[in-house]
């Protein structure tokens, strides 16, 4: 698996930012703006009340929100985003029980090349149905997703829902019969990361990030298990799955990687309970400069951490 890492012209996700509640307001608490300095500067001076703007809406609704066009919407930084070439965004609120810990916002830029998918699936009548999604150039795949539903246990969303565990599926489109594999294959989508979303209303939602080979969401994905039922009372986590374009498989059945709280970016997520999005972060695996780490809560405790690197 020591293959050369393909360099995309521009990444599928251009900006990742973190908003933290301070009293009744969300304030910017770091992020990776990918060199879009003007947008970063404006964001640093912006804040959101509950229900206000995209992060505030995700807070108020208690679930991820997909916004595919900024013009005429509740998005507050439309002009700055336009200038930066950003056209769509997804806000993922991180709840510990009923307490909002942070909102992770990813912003993307539409063109005819960049393919990927960020989808929100929510339970309705015993099935997961597509709530909303952003697909970039994968228009046909978007149509298929809108007309698909997943029973418990089936496909990436159904599997995440049934197991309440993040799942990283390989090669969605090349022979593993992912339930929408034919369409996924056409769209060039190869890897799928599914995340259970902790919602304060107790409803079930699953977020999927589907990554294409040409314009990958990331070159390295990791899933860490931090449940006391798995790692005991020690504040630590073990890697249960991971794949890297450089290192190949990262998982090990016999000797899984283990980290403690505050050890590296994953340890920071574990110790602080907050997501991280860092650019040019020190201590990353060789060849990587950017990392996003997202805690997945079950009740008031972190159950898993997912991370992607580029």
């Amino acid at each position, binding site marked *: *698996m020591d293959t050369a890492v393909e360099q995309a012209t521009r990444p599928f996700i251009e900006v990742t930012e973190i908003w933290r509640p301070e009293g009744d307001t969300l304030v910017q608490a770091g992020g990776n703006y990918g060199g879009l300095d003007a947008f970063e500067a404006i964001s640093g001076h912006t804040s959101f009340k509950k229900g206000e703007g995209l992060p505030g809406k995700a807070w108020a609704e208690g679930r991820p929100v997909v916004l595919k066009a900024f013009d005429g919407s509740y998005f507050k930084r439309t002009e700055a985003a336009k200038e930066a070439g950003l056209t769509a965004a997804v806000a993922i609120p991180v709840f510990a029980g009923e307490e909002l810990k942070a909102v992770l916002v990813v912003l993307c830029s539409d063109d005819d090349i960049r393919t990927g998918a960020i989808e929100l699936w929510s339970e309705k009548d015993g099935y997961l149905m597509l709530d909303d999604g952003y697909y970039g150039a994968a228009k046909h795949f978007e149509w298929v997703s809108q007309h698909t539903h997943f*029973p*418990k*246990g*089936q*496909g990436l969303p*159904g*599997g995440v829902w*049934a*197991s*309440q*565990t993040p*799942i*990283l*599926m*390989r*090669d*969605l489109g090349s*022979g*593993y*019969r*992912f*339930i929408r*594999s034919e369409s996924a294959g056409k769209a060039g989508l190869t890897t799928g990361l599914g995340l259970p979303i902790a919602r304060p209303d107790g409803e079930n939602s699953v977020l999927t990030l589907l990554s294409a080979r040409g314009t990958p969401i990331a070159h390295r994905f990791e899933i860490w298990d931090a449940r*006391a*039922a*798995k*790692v*005991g*009372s020690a504040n630590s986590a073990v890697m249960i*799955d991971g*794949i890297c374009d450089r290192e*190949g*498989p990262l*998982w090990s*059945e016999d000797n899984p990687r283990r980290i403690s709280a505050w050890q590296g970016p994953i340890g920071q997520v574990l110790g602080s309970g907050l997501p991280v999005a860092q650019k040019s972060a020190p201590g990353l695996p060789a060849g990587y400069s950017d990392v996003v780490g997202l805690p997945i809560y079950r*009740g*008031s405790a972190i159950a898993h951490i997912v991370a992607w690197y580029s």
Partner: protein
Amino acid sequence: MQKLVVIGAGMASGRMLEHMFEADPQAYEVTLFNAEPRGNYNRIMLSPVLSGEKSYEEIVTHDDAWYADNAVTCRFGERITGIDRDRKVVISEKGETPYDKLVIGTGSAPFIIPCPGHDLPGVVAFRDLEDVDAMKTAAGSDGRAVVIGGGLLGLEAAAALRLQGMEVTVLHLMGHLMERQLDEAAGYLLKKDLEGRGITVLTGASTKAIMGEGRVEKVVLEDGTVIPADIVVMAVGIRPSVALGQAAGLEMGRAIKVDAQMVTSDPDVLAVGECVEFDGNLFGLVAPLYDQARVAAKTLLGEDDVFRMRELSTKLKVTGCDLFSAGDFADGEGREDIVFRDPGRGIYKRLVIEDDVVLGAVFYGDTADSNWYFGLIKDKTDISEMRDTLIFGPAYQGGAQVDPMAAVAALPPDAEICGCNGVCKSTITEAIGAGATDLGSLRATTKASASCGTCTGLVEQLLAVTLGEDFRSKEAGICGCTDLTHEEVRRLIKARELKSQTAVWQELGWKTVDGCHVCRPAINFYLLADWPLEYQDDLQSRFINERKHANIQKDGTFSVMPRMWGGITNPAELRAIADAADKYNVPTVKVTGGQRIDLLGVKSEDLPHIWADLNAAGMVSGHAYSKGLRTVKTCVGTDHCRFGTQDSTGLGIKLEKALWGSWTPHKVKLAVSGCPRNCAEATCKDVGVICVDSGYQIGVAGAAGMDVKETERLADVPTEQEAIDLTIAFVQLYRENAKYLDRPYKWVAKVGLDWVKERVVHDLDNRAALIERFAISQSVYQKDPWAEHAATKTDAYTPLSDFRLEAAE
């Protein structure tokens, strides 16, 4: 350089080569044959490849570069057809290859049940990449899969196929899943987990045939069930692949015999992996295979090492499914269990201990400390010092004893106490401060412990912490196995649809593995009363009288009492009884207070025969031993008595014919008197009917035993049918609500007669529903146990030991 030939590029031989190259890369010139057209890959990771959670490339252990770097001549896809030990050559399709040392690592082959249709296209095993590809192709069509075998491999295949989008049914012959690795409680949780993924699991399912025109279409079970299938995965076990070794004349057992250096009966031939037998043992898990590989490498290099059997542990590779089992957890004399359950989080932990040593461990839902426990098992550590906190894991060892009260007091205000209703500590303490000073009022105001009830203990501790001495604990639990009362358990069995004993033990947090002699009969009754169609009556949970269908006497003999409907008999029945008494030397024949004839002093081994004789004369069991309907005593009524107002005998017979065979919380005795003179003594029965000119007076809740109590009037009704309906509805209400071993008079005293009247007399829809549910129950349980036992269970009555030593219960 010496020539080493290895047959089979599996995990054991691959690890052996690694060790050997590491120690001495120049020792041998290696030629590696493999029937599969590829090299060594991590076979135990095939299930995540099947599910799509791993790619094949990720599980390749040795790629082409590795073989090239180590100068291994790879002959993949080339099958060995023979071994000539005299000439020291192996024979393959392409000729002969000489060896100085030979290692056989041919592994195993899946066992295919030889049922009709097992060779149809679409029947696959789960052993190699070809099988995975075949399954993936089938999954691509969104089809239906049947997996035969609920062991490790079968369940991994089932979960993977489900993730791939198939409708999956697992058929398992035994009573619970993975019975070799898990006990019933863990098997229950695993089944529940898999069902939560949309997989259908059928236990006790025996495959009769696989059918289809040209390819698989359906699987037929022995009980006639038909399951449609596009693919059938056989995962019932493996058998060592030993044909080559056998043909070569090596010493064989169930597989190729090796010594502790992995050498076969030929000193130049070694064997490793699933094809070997060592000291009578076969191998299927990877850990001992790696040990064998290490030893074989040393042997090849002329170094000393010894293969030893060791304890094994099991995990299941299904995402989100945490289970662990190790050691021996079978029941046994002198063995004790430590059990921890957390129903809210689906956790079950059990340790089996003997002589202060942990023999086995089964964990479901929490495997955090499994390695520590596995160490205790392997090292046979003396755990006497940490026994009380052992189940909580290593973090609790060495410190002071944990005081549960202090722990509750120390909980932060926002700590969740009741997971079901999301009630935190501060909500409860505020409610206590506002005047809710007992469990009932706390439940009413906060809903804490009002759903599953498993936090009742915590809530009570909070009451005790907050109120101090003012708080008095509620009624004690059923027994030491649970803090829940009978009434709570009954409510929860209904509310949470618990339909098996295992479900009760787990979901209600039983502190023991499977109950005790106190709770088991009660739970067995509650389950069969609430779920007559779904629940399977468990004879082992019954008192000896109900197991034997006869009353054990103080000398160890039994009594036999045929049913006489309404106390009416005839000369033929009397002759049959007399003949039976003669034939089986019955020492005592007694007319009972309930108007029956009792044969006392029958030996256990004679029971099935005397029952058969009485059956032949048209009589059935009188259930004189049961917690169920006993007798309906009658007077002669209008047929003969000049005071009689109604056909009391006829009504008595009808009632007995309607109610016999039903199990109840305690025994139920009825009587019907034809007039208020009450010759049948109906006013001290559980249900007593007094016939009057205007109809029938139904009395309930009388007693004439340790307590004496007159019946209370349930209702007066004009017609016989209404009298029957009310009686049946009352008995069913009693069956559904009373505490086990409460006679109706005790139960009515608790719930109040008005509560009963509301449901049985005034609410006609409810009365009809009670009668309907009773009829459903009777469709299962109204059967003569004598006939069944005389026909099929005669052996069970032949004494293994002297019953006189067994205390009467």
